[in-house]
């Protein structure tokens, strides 16, 4: 299900070219709008669809299993920190989803790894991985489990 570009919406900004992991979104040499140069190499990752500020990129379904009339569109709203999907089935059913993509403002939670001291000789030779035991909290009274947190496993989906 390769991507395609609505030429009237695209302004040739290049965000899709920048982000495409397959390097198949290019700027057309004549019209200076983006296009997918190799649709059969597109793995439908939706990176360009989400990155496009103009919503100019869409993904088409193969004609054999996704006949006309369906639609899967996404709006990655970075300012709000959310991603929203609208799925339209060909029978008219419509599904809407809204989820967080970040919980902190952009650029505020980048780990400053250059400032982290390098591992000592004992750490290198030890069996623990980077940031263990801190990240698995072995130094904080052992592994955190449902029991240690006073919780119980319940059947079914619940919130």
């Amino acid at each position, binding site marked *: 299900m390769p991507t395609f570009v609505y030429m009237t919406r695209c*302004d040739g900004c290049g965000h899709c070219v920048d982000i495409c992991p397959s390097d198949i979104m290019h700027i057309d040499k004549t019209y200076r*709008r983006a296009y997918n140069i190799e649709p059969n190499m597109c793995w439908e990752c939706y990176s360009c669809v989400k990155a496009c500020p103009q919503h100019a990129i869409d993904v088409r379904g193969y004609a054999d299993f996704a006949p006309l009339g369906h639609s899967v569109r996404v709006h990655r709203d970075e*300012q709000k920190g959310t991603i929203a999907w609208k799925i339209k089935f060909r029978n008219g059913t419509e599904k809407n989803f809204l989820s967080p993509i970040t*919980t902190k403002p952009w650029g505020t939670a980048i780990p400053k790894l250059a400032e982290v001291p390098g591992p000592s000789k004992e750490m290198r030779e030890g069996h623990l991985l980077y940031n263990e035991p801190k990240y698995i909290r072995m130094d904080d009274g052992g592994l955190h489990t449902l029991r240690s947190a006073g919780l119980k496993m319940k059947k079914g989906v619940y919130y």
Partner: protein
Amino acid sequence: MMFTSNPFVEISASIPPAVMQAYVVLMILLVAAGTLFDVVHKGSAKYFFENWRKSIGKGARPLGGGEMMSIAVKTGVVDVLTSGEFCNPRRRIAHLLGMYGFVIYVVTTAILIFRYPTPATPAPAILPILWWIGGLMICVGGYWFWFFIRADVAAEGRSPFRLMRADLFILSLLGSATLGLIWAFLQSRGMTGAGLCFGLYILATTVLFAGVPWSKFAHMFFKPAAAFEKRVSEANGTVKNLPTQTRDDPAQRERHSMELLRDAPMDMGLGIKREAPRHY
């Protein structure tokens, strides 16, 4: 003196004002004919109205006359007068310079040629000044766009100076404004080459107005129509099938999966748009 004298008066000694006026009328007719040809040939209007009809069939909320009016006003004020569709502020400023420069340049040219064509009818100083300002605005916005802002084709291994049909509009516009200003400058100083510049100025201007079916000139007609259609689709809820749920809705903020964002600011920053896309 150069900025306050009507450049078309001096040339009126060799070219009768009636010929100049006929040329302006011909250019207006060429733009109208070219746009109509473009609409019929490409079927753009047919596509536009078919899309419109389809969106109505897709369960769109019908809009009242008042709502349509307010959308039309918003399109006019935001999208047309202030080029609101541009995301890139540099592109927007360059477009505003080019657009208003072009309007001032064309209108003052027409007034100078029709109202003050001969030395017997001296033009108020403000008109030639506006003509110069309009031409300079086109040059500033146009050259800025051409050399610094245009979609990057160098990344595709093409010389940025390779010319093609898609460049017809911007280059003939820049040619018309630049050569017009050079011609007026040379003529006011009585320097040689003014006649040659005038010839090239007329050539570039003719290409600009006669090349409508092959150039981007007609965008000044169909871009506002597309912007209006976009606003209508946002108002009637079809939005080209794009999702409409946002965190602005308090009910959405209360949902369990949005719990993580409960204390987050409503403006989280620019994300990937913090950097210009220049990594390819």
